[in-house]
């Protein structure tokens, strides 16, 4: 290609200090095809860009090389500049002579030599560049939210309020999530149900929101703007259209032995159930593992009593297929299993409970009707010990390496509520650190200490031993006093770590969204794109991205919503033109490329090929450029080199190799 322009940036002294930019210009001029080369202080500045534009117009340049900072920094800038000046934006190559040259070399001669070589490689590459035009894809104006907790509800409400259709898929029978299980919320002590249930009702009533409860995402295909999702609506065995939510079925059901998920297993529920009284939708489901009728064919009590005739034992799972433009993951969290922490006697004593179980005990709708009672004997406890960081901040094989973030605050809340309601109860909190960053958080914790007399002890607990008299001895340490403590307690509450809902791994795989070693979804950028997944069109809301409390979850939910709205507001999306492209004439049709494509972007068609005058129908590969993300896996899999990647073609890379090794 004739007509290449080379533009060398000083970047102030960032480059010029260790690279002789004039020498680079001089050497660049000697390269074949180069008709123009110049240097300038700041190429990315308006004046610098103007120089490029002028040179393109005046020298009729076909391609340009900018020797500057990393392409990750300003490739887009210079592409735009080139486009404005009238050439295809993909006729731009960057030689990274700052991050990968001037900044790491001290010797000017060495730096200059390398800069010349990098420039030469970029020139060699641009020589083989071709104009590329991004494709377009249509945007389906509908969003999917996976998970119906507070994160999912808030995201859905915000998207719906902006005027777009949203579906919420929730795997349990009701939306509401973990927040519905909480009694009060810190630091204001509002009743959780009082602030959550109106939002649940709003979501259910919103004309733009469709709820798929007791449903799971089964399969996801497609790409940003055009996802196709299969949703499995699990059989409820209750006809949602007929059920009036009267609740008689639940009263009459003789199978009452299933541990109640909502009450954290502290009491039992019936086989036909709604998780809680304010459930939305207020339509029960039959648990097929518990229902006598479904297991043995005998019983049928609920059907007999249902006046609406809503019970249907023959109901089957149903698959709904729906198209979406964007997907929000809001799968939330679970409390970790405490199998690895038997030193705290969780499995040995009923009076050692998790904080979530305490929430249920404290809640008026809970197993004890809100009375503080021991689960073993129903007695009112006099001494309660809280143990912090159970499974959090562990880098052994048993726990989680991260801080679960919410435990310090909810423990302060529990301690305060107990001391407030039952001043006769002594409360001791064993802590490692009390972490209270957040508005009014530290004040809240201090109130627990100062106004409510909660006894905070810095130090961890080694063991909890049940005593013959039914009490518990907590073997702890007071690190500030340097003393071992043996505290007698009637109840021990463990601040168990939280972990992402285990289902998220499967969902992340379906979405090709990346996930970290702790199963938290990875954000596209930890600071600047915290609610987006690296996979285009997939957004993150709530604890699935990292531990957070309710206010943070709600604000992240809103942020995710606005990102979705920003996407759905577009009619069309431009696709990355650096996609794979087969040479049909030479394609063997062997399918090896399709086998390695992570996006299912390659299909095969029988096509009439005119091979130098011979016309025959052949099986050849075809790439869906909207699906192809341009990784290049197929190009290497193809033995005949038929599959090539635009923008990073075989010959371009070979040219770079040659230029470097010359």
């Amino acid at each position, binding site marked *: 290609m004739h007509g290449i322009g080379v533009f060398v940036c000083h970047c102030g002294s960032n480059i010029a200090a260790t690279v002789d930019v004039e020498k680079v210009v001089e050497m660049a001029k000697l390269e074949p095809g180069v008709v123009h080369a110049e240097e300038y202080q700041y190429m990315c500045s308006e004046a610098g860009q103007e120089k490029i534009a002028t040179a393109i117009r005046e020298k009729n340049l076909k391609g340009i090389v900018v020797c500057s900072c990393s392409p990750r920094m300003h490739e887009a800038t210079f592409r735009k500049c080139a486009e404005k000046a009238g050439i295809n934006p993909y006729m731009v190559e960057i030689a990274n002579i700052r991050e990968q040259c001037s900044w790491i070399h001290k010797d000017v001669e060495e730096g200059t030599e390398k800069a010349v070589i990098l420039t030469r490689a970029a020139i060699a590459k641009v020589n083989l560049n071709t104009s590329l035009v991004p494709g377009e894809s249509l945007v389906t104006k509908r969003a999917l939210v996976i998970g119906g907790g507070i994160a999912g509800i808030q995201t859905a409400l915000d998207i719906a309020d902006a005027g777009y259709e949203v579906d919420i898929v929730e795997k349990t029978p009701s939306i509401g999530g973990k927040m519905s299980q909480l009694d009060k919320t810190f630091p204001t002590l509002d009743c959780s149900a009082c602030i959550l249930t109106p939002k649940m009702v709003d979501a259910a009533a919103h004309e733009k929101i469709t709820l798929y409860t007791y449903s799971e995402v089964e399969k996801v295909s497609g790409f940003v703007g055009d996802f196709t999702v299969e949703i499995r609506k699990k059989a409820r065995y209750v006809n949602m259209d007929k059920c009036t939510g009267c609740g008689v079925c639940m009263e009459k059901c003789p199978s009452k032995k299933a541990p109640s998920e909502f009450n954290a297993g502290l009491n039992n529920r019936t086989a036909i159930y709604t998780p809680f009284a304010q459930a939305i939708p207020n339509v029960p489901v039959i648990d097929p593992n518990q229902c006598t009728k479904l297991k043995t064919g005998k019983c049928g009590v609920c059907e007999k009593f249902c006046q609406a005739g809503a019970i249907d034992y023959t109901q089957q799972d149903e698959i709904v297929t729906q198209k979406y433009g964007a997907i929000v993951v809001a799968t939330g969290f679970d409390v970790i299993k405490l199998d690895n922490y038997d*030193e705290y006697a969780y499995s040995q004593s009923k009076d050692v409970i998790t904080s979530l179980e305490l929430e249920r005990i404290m809640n008026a709708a809970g197993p004890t009707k809100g009375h503080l009672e021991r689960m073993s004997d129903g007695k009112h406890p006099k001494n309660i010990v809280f143990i912090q*960081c159970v499974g959090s*901040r*562990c*880098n*052994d094989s*048993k*726990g989680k390496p991260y801080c679960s973030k919410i435990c310090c605050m909810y423990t302060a809340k529990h301690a305060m509520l107990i001391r407030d309601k039952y001043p006769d109860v002594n409360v001791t909190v064993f802590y*490692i650190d009390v972490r209270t960053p957040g508005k009014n958080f530290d004040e809240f914790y201090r109130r627990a200490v100062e106004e409510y007399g909660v006894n905070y002890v*810095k*130090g*961890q*607990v*080694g*063991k909890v031993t049940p005593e013959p008299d039914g009490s518990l001895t907590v*073997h*702890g*340490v007071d*690190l500030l006093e*340097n003393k*071992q*403590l043996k505290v007698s307690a009637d109840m021990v509450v463990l601040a168990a770590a939280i972990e992402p809902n285990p289902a998220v791994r499967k969902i992340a795989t379906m979405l090709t969204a990346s996930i970290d070693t702790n199963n938290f979804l990875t954000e596209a950028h930890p600071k600047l794109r915290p609610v987006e997944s690296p996979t285009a069109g997939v957004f993150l809301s709530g604890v699935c991205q990292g531990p957070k409390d309710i206010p943070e979850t709600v604000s992240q939910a809103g942020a995710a919503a606005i990102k979705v709205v920003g996407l759905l507001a577009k009619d069309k999306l431009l696709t990355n033109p650096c996609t794979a492209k087969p040479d049909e004439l030479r394609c063997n049709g062997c399918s090896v490329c399709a086998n390695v494509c992570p996006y299912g972007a390659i299909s095969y068609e029988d096509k009439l090929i005119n091979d130098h005058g011979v016309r025959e129908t052949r099986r050849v590969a075809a790439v869906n450029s909207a699906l192809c993300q341009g990784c290049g896996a197929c190009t290497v899999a193809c033995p005949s080199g038929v599959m090539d990647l635009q923008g990073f073609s075989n010959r371009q890379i070979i040219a770079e190799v040659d230029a470097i090794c010359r």
Partner: protein
Amino acid sequence: MSHGNKNQAAKVKEISGTNPLKCMKCGKCSASCPAFDKMDIKPHQFVSYVVNEDVEALAKCESLWVCLSCFACVERCPRDVKPGKIVDAARQIVVREKGGNYLSANEIPELVEEDLPQQLLVSAFRKFRR
């Protein structure tokens, strides 16, 4: 603010195979230690003597000789620091030095009782002597 012997601290880290910097000072070791009351330097404090390269002070302490190597601290340490291995390494450094034996053979007869199992003597010899 290192005020001690770098080599000894390095030796402790090496032969114990522990990294004292992993410690987050939670105190679970001290809460678990059955010999806590007998110790002058407490299990959660071992790490700081190594970090501050003050193994001399650690070597002089009583804790060396009352640690039972029962491994409760190692088992429960959430940070995989293994305080029990640190104190044993310090004990090794002491007994390897000349005159560092904590138990002399002459003491044995008066300590031995009728039913005392061999295992006890063997173990004590291993722990208290070179």
